[in-house]
């Protein structure tokens, strides 16, 4: 390890290699604070060639590494390995090219999500908008296939990445995709996005940006019960509307967010539903009345329509504050990220309520209602003996409810280290084995972020099966390299 550290210092300079235990504690957790591990060394390269050299040094030393962007992830995906190297990409925050004529932006991985939108404002924007968009990095978005509030209409990170430069764990640098779409060959960009840092590290990312919608109309409607809000969501979608955002908060999350933001959401509301239509002004206006009518028909106790950008901002601030504000009503909380088919919302919420009562722990719910992505926040007090374990058990049962309803263990936070134990609930052995094949094609030595995603550690064997010469090789038309 001492040799490796010297090599890292040679590559990046001593100022950019952190080995002091106190300094390393900065990196012991990502956004999920339940897990911590202090890496042996953290290295902060400044360029793609430096990243490549660091990866090669790790390869030669046989030392595993974990890439980290802003450290805002919520699944422990950037949790360091104690005997490994942490590859911190925060110095690589250059916007390399703004190609507006072709609606592309080329960035380094440390650029923040919001800075991409800023670089193309005011005419364009980058649609994926995680709540952490002020700080979270594009490299992290690529690793996690991040979503956000607007993905029901606009899609996820994977729908906006057209090209990647990737340093593979063996030190090879590959160009995947490009500025164009449907480029020839396997869709390795599609396979890499969302691979949670286990296939390599992206050093250059080509993003697609789109024109800003002409108008946005935002309302928040309050209901006595989440089931009424849920029915409104079904009715809105059933009417053929594709809102830019459809967000729901329950009583407890309204209480927490209101305490932080003071937007004037009524304290006695059982649910708040935020609906945002965006697009051509005439189209938004024509259909907004329909949304209001659907809210009222489902028993809304109040509908507040944002009169100006400031009021729209306030509604969104309240929604995006829900996670952070939870600290006001609970000493600790555990965030889940389950997904269900939207039509099962009411019955799943009932099951969560029952589980919550059974465990004697409160559960606040914030959801991306359009795409059925629930963020139940399990409230507990770590100082009370037994509560953390009970909270974890409850969180696990909530995930099970989501999978049993035909959904997923994670909609946008990733599997990381936190949800890997749930993977066998969703995938059988044959499925997991197929995942491992992809992993082994990219990283046969298992050095990139080992111990994440897959429920149990696995090794890659040699490529099995006899080598068979392809007829085209025999004919000299193609060759393997």
């Amino acid at each position, binding site marked *: 390890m001492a040799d490796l550290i010297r090599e890292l210092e040679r590559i990046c300079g001593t100022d950019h290699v952190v080995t002091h235990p106190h300094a390393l504690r900065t990196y012991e957790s990502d956004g999920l604070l339940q897990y911590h591990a202090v890496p042996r060394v953290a290295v902060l390269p400044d360029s793609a060639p430096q990243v490549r050299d660091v990866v090669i040094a790790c390869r030669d030393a046989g030392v595993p590494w974990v890439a980290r962007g802003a450290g805002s992830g919520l699944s422990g995906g950037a949790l360091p390995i104690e005997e490994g190297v942490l590859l911190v990409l925060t110095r690589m925050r250059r916007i390399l090219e703004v190609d507006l004529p072709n609606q592309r932006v080329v960035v380094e991985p440390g650029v923040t999500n919001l800075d991409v939108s800023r670089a193309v404002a005011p005419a364009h924007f980058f649609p994926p908008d995680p709540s952490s968009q002020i700080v979270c990095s594009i490299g992290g978005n690529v690793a996690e296939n991040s979503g956000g509030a607007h993905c029901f209409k606009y899609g996820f990170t994977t729908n906006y990445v057209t090209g990647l430069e990737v340093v593979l764990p063996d030190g090879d640098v590959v160009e995947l995709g490009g500025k164009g779409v449907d480029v020839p060959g396997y869709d390795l960009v599609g396979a890499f996005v969302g691979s949670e840092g286990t296939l390599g590290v992206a050093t250059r990312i080509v993003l697609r940006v789109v024109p800003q919608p002409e108008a946005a109309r935002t309302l928040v409607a309050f209901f006595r019960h989440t089931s009424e809000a849920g029915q409104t969501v079904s009715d809105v979608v059933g009417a053929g509307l594709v809102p830019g955002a459809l967000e729901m908060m329950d009583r407890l999350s309204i209480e927490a967010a209101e305490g932080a933001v003071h937007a004037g959401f009524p304290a006695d509301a059982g649910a708040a539903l935020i609906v945002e239509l965006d697009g051509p002004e005439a189209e938004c206006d024509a259909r907004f009345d329909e949304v209001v009518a659907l809210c009222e028909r489902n028993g809304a106790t109040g509908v507040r329509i944002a009169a100006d950008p400031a009021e729209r901002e306030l509604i969104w601030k309240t929604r995006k504050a829900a996670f952070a504000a939870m600290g006001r009503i609970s000493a600790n909380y555990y965030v889940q990220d389950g997904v*269900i088919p939207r039509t099962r919302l009411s019955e799943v919420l009932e099951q969560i309520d029952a589980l919550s009562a059974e465990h004697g722990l409160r559960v606040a719910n914030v959801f991306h209602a359009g795409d059925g992505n629930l963020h139940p926040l399990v409230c507990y007090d770590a100082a009370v003996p037994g509560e953390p374990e009970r909270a974890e058990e409850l969180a696990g049962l909530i995930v099970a409810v989501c999978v049993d309803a035909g959904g*997923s263990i994670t909609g946008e936070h990733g599997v990381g280290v936190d949800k890997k134990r749930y993977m066998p609930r969703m995938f059988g052995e044959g499925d997991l084995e197929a995942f491992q094949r992809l992993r082994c094609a990219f990283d046969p030595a298992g050095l990139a972020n080992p111990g994440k995603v897959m429920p149990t550690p696995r090794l890659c064997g040699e490529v099995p099966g006899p080598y068979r010469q392809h007829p085209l090789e025999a004919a000299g038309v193609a060759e393997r390299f």
Partner: protein
Amino acid sequence: MTPSPGSYEEVAGALHEAAAAGRRVRVRGSGTKLGWGAPAPDPDVELSTAKLDAIVEHNAGDLTAVVQAGLPLARLREELAAAGQMLAIDPPGEGTVGGLFATADSGPLRHRYGGPRDLVLGMTVALSDGTLARAGGKVIKNVAGYDLAKLFTGSYGTLGAILEVAVRLHPLPPRAVTAVGSSDDPAAVGRAATELAHARIEAQCLDVAWAAGAGRVLGRFTGAEAAAQAAGAARALAAAGLAVEEVDDDAELWEAQRAGQRSAGGIVVRVSGVQAQLEEQMRAAERLGGSLVGRAAHGLSWIAFAGGGPEAVDGLRRELAPSPCVVLDAPAEVRRQVDVWGVGDSTAVGLMRRVKQRFDPAGACSPGVMAGGI
């Protein structure tokens, strides 16, 4: 005689058996795109998906469906339309779900909804060692596990057999109006198309077309205010110097755009370009005496021409470099002489080869069809 297994296990078993015997296997849907991909020796075994033609689930309220590979697209379209919904992928011609995802073909709807890779939620596949594997899910948001559904989309059957696909659906818009702008100046057509691609409008489709010295920009609008939006687009096209019309009954216009992506006897080259290259692409089509249809905002075009040979394809590639150019339809003798995929010594090819070796170590699944001789 092409065996037509009736269950996923049977497909996996047949694939495994053939692979173990060192045979080459091709999975076949309705055979509409068998000529695509690099020319490879005939398969020893063909497996038909004809019996796997069920709509396993149509969750209308969730706008999702799970369908089997052998399902004819026409039948899926009909079933979904009855519920006011669609799978927003409209390639030319007919075919099956499996063939669509194996080739990742698309049509004008790609503008708003993306391609097959963007609408696939999950997939069940059979691998050549007999493994049945499922990736993704059937909800519209899900990041659990690797996205093998995208990996298999566009893999031309070279990684394994696609058996079942979970897809996102969209509401079928009640009405549509298309604004058309025409000009014989490729620069004006390119400029106008780019302008619409950058405008704060929401087109369902935004295409360009070029044939016989004349070009068009077509913007299709749907929704409550479709006519108003189309009128706005028409004004923009007129301001850019194009002769405009607004067309209510626009089905034929779009059928022609789709048809331009195929050629019975000629050569079709798909160009993965950028918006700013549209004018150059049209000029290239004109020089070859051919035609072009394309998705303006994506810079993705299909250039069709007759009578040219491999040198015409090579010329196109030089002219439009570095945009990748893939030969789709082409006469057999042209296919033999030309590099169909044109990936050359791209760094990605080595990695693709490693992926192939892991998923199909026996090399049984349509060997040689994919880019790089994979």
